């Protein structure tokens, strides 16, 4: 039984079938990659997991509870954090504030009217955020304006914002999309480091085979809205079905 | 029954004005992505074009009429408008009588010019700024325009008459076998606006220019990539939108005596119309204009007011709130227009 169980999920947009009978099981403390050619339904699936889309039928269970019909913030409170394709951070705030906000969300829940206390008195939260920044080697950028950083640093900050919540499941939506090779390798290293330091389950949607094979322990191949196979990386490489559907266009 | 028919016509006339203003607003929204709070002021300027022309036509010189004498026995001084001197008494009198429809000829160039200056001088710099800034700067412009008009024309409404041939009433109930009298000019206004609306749609539908503009409304970037200088066309589009507002105003002058703040009064309503119709949807703006005009007229029936007091004052806003909450994109709005 995995921490995330997707069963028989269907989703249509008008006449177009985006997802047809998707079954997926992500085991705890593994890195699970979901790959597939463009238009295979990867993003649609991800959006169904985080509450942005609601499947037409099927079930999505996380940690024994259904996520269907819940809003994104409720799903996050259940323990799923998400990293976006282009880093989504609070560009008008400082780096430390960016990390403090998820700390508050974790401690105080989805809403709390703490309008009179001073942020500076929240020693515990500040410490926690600084610790996290130190973990991702960003403590020197503590008081920088988040929007003025490089893309690589924004990605790093976004990861920090997700990790500081200690999520049970971290969803990564093409974390290296549009990155130069060096940045991609840095991201891979960062993710490996995270994986070594803490027990965490990750689901990665990725296009870049290099990233997938460096990180993933299980791989699900999606084609035309349906999972073809779910296997270990070694077995995926030579799998005839996968080759046919997908790897024809990529170098492995 | 006759009250209902009367209100239906009232609604059509009101709706025509809303639809014309909303059409221009939507054109500017859809093409330039600019929220124009000065659009009501353009409507007002149109109305004052009618006032101006009728004043120009009435500029007179004094002559002594030897055939008539005043009570002291001196020859009577009579004022003769220059137009009667230049074009003959009959033609001159006709021109004065028809000054409102003739003002259309003045309004179009004036509004094109105003629109051009506005777009090049101000709006252009706000394409990339947040909507809040656009709202604020055009709000400031609207204040300036209305204050300028107030300086030249004073604060009081200026009565403007329709041509005498159209100033009476007509029995619109005849075809239903009833006696319902309705001002002729309001019918004229309705047909006029139908022609303008039809003209704008035909222009967008059947000319290359219109095609480019429509494509630009759908996807500005792609059109830009095709190497078409979309900006230049959008400038003209702004002029056209301004003209539509001006035309709406000029012909409305006999219905509502122009005053300097009429623009602000109509602006809020027109915005509501645009939102109900759906931001960026031209047919939506027209449909919502007529719909809200008619609803507003029906709400002012005494029978309706007896059930819900005050409903005539707020019906438009109530409808707008309900529509926005149930159909966020408005009646005919497309996805992704003016949303974050």
């Amino acid at each position, binding site marked *: 039984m995995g921490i995330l169980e997707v069963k028989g999920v269907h989703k249509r947009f008008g006449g177009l079938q985006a997802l047809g009978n998707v079954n997926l099981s992500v085991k705890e403390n593994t890195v699970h990659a979901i790959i597939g050619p463009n238009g295979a339904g990867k993003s649609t699936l991800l959006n169904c997991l985080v509450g942005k889309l609601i499947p037409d039928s099927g079930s999505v269970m996380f940690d024994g509870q259904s996520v269907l019909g819940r809003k994104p913030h409720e799903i996050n409170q259940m323990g799923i954090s998400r990293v976006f394709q282009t880093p989504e951070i609070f560009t008008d705030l400082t780096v430390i504030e960016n990390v403090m906000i998820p700390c508050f969300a974790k401690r105080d829940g989805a809403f709390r009217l703490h309008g009179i206390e001073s942020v500076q008195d929240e020693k515990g939260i500040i410490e926690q955020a600084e610790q996290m920044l130190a973990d991702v080697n960003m403590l020197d950028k503590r008081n920088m304006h988040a929007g003025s950083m490089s893309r690589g640093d924004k990605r790093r900050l976004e990861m920090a914002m997700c990790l500081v919540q200690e999520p049970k499941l971290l969803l990564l939506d093409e974390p290296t999309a549009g990155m130069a090779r060096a940045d991609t390798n840095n991201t891979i290293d960062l993710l490996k480091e995270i994986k070594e330091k803490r027990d965490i389950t990750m689901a990665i949607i990725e296009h870049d085979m290099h990233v997938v094979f460096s990180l993933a322990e299980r791989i699900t191949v999606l084609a035309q809205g349906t999972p073809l196979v779910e296997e270990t990386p070694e077995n995926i490489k030579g799998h005839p079905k996968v080759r046919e559907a997908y790897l024809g266009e990529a170098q492995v | 029954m006759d009250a209902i028919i009367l209100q239906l016509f009232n609604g059509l006339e009101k709706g025509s004005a809303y639809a014309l203003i909303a059409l221009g607003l939507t054109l500017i929204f859809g093409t330039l992505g600019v929220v124009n709070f000065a659009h009501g002021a353009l409507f007002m300027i149109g109305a004052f074009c009618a006032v101006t022309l009728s004043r120009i036509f009435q500029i007179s010189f004094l002559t002594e009429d030897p055939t008539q004498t005043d009570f002291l026995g001196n020859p009577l001084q009579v004022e003769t408008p220059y137009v009667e001197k230049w074009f003959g008494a009959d033609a001159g009198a006709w021109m004065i009588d028809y000054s409102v429809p003739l003002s259309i000829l003045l309004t179009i160039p004036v509004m094109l010019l105003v629109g051009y200056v506005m777009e090049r001088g101000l709006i252009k710099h706000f394409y990339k700024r947040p*909507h809040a800034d656009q709202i604020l700067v055009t709000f*400031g412009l609207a*204040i300036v325009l209305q204050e300028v008009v107030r300086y030249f024309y004073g604060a009081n409404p200026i009565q403007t008459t329709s041509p005498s041939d159209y100033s009476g009433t007509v029995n619109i109930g005849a075809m239903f076998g009833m006696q319902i009298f309705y001002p002729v000019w309001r019918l004229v206004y309705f047909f006029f606006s139908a022609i303008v609306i039809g003209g704008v749609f035909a222009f967008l539908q059947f000319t290359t220019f219109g095609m480019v503009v429509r494509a630009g409304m759908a996807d500005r970037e792609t059109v830009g990539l095709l190497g078409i200088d979309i900006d230049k066309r959008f400038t003209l589009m702004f002029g056209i939108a301004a003209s539509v507002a001006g035309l709406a105003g000029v012909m409305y002058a006999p219905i509502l005596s122009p005053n300097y703040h009429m623009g602000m009064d109509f602006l809020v309503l027109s915005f509501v119309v645009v939102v109900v119709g759906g931001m960026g949807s031209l047919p939506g703006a027209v449909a919502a204009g007529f719909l809200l005009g008619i609803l507003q007229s029906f709400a002012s029936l005494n029978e309706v007011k007896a059930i819900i007091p005050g409903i005539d004052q707020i019906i438009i806003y109530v409808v707008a709130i309900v529509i926005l909450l149930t159909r966020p994109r408005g009646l005919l709005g497309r996805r992704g227009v003016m949303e974050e």
Partner: protein
Amino acid sequence: MLGLNAKDSRFMLIVVALTLLTPFILNPFPADSALAQFNAGYPALMQRFAIYGLMAIGFNILFGLTGYLSFGHAAFLGVGSYASVWMFKLLSMNVIPALIAATLVSGVFALAIGYVSLRRSGIYFSILTLAFAEMCYRLAYSVLTPITNGETGLQITLSDPRILDGAPTSSSLPTPGFFGLKMNAAHTIDIAGWSFTFSVGYYFCAVIALIGFYLSLRIFRSPFGMMLRAVKSNQQRMNYTGLNSRPYTLAAFVISGMYAGLAGGLLAAMDPLAGAERMQWTASGEVVLMTIVGGVGTLMGPVLGAGFIKYCENIFSKINESVLHSWFSFLPDGVEDVVTWIFARFVGEGWHLTLGVMFMLIVTFLPGGLVEGGKRLAARRKKKSDADAAKHPAE
């Protein structure tokens, strides 16, 4: 001090000092000098500085922090005025119940309007608030006449019950007061040609405005304030971080609505009269302008903006052509007439023209308002002095 750090405490003390010394600061010219018309230290005007300053402070919590541009805040101002005049009529001429009622009633209105309007964002939100405010305005003029007294405006009369005050003792209308202190009481001190007026009304408004300022300072520095800035910055990230942005924005909306209602209550406390024209959407536009002129999202900006606009309104409306003629009399005759004519368009009745032009200039060239302008000047000066220091090293 009071939960503020050293820097904010100093800031707060400066604001308090400036506010309390306003009757001096705004009266820099002797009463009989030619420049006395630029004095602004008389009660009615200073009260408006404090009241509109308070309203702008509240508006800034919504617009400055969350970025939601409401075009309907004048409605709350109007509601607050009506509520407090009703308290004067029914309960007592004491301003305390009136102000409490003004704040609470406008808070309830803000809750209802905000609940609906905040389902949309951006331009849709602006238009929804505009529609609601316009609805309130129309209703106040029409069916709600029994409550609002329509075009005449709601006033106090001798025959009002005022159950806490007992039977009227004189035949003139009572004035609002804070327990024994009458709001219209004032004391004038003359010092060597200068004339300073200290009015109870101003100091009362000033104290309330200071409390409002202090609360807004606390909100700015609080986690709640940080969340509001997060709403403005990236709502998507906020939702995916497990935070529900809706109650945050709603709370900000209600708080700013209550500030506006309190300001409306103060207006009524200074002059127990409430009219619907206070609710017109152009009045909402003016509050937006004050906030922008001063500096959106800055603490001090809205207050400065409110003061600046109200001061200009007062001064510009007072100047007339003969004053202008006397100013420009040093110019040659023909030139003088032209210059006077041009300036005359912007003063007196033309004040609104000035307002519109100011609106456009500030939004176009100085979106950060006066506060940003000040910062730019300071930065330029610093740069210059740095450059000077670099030119003359080791002096």
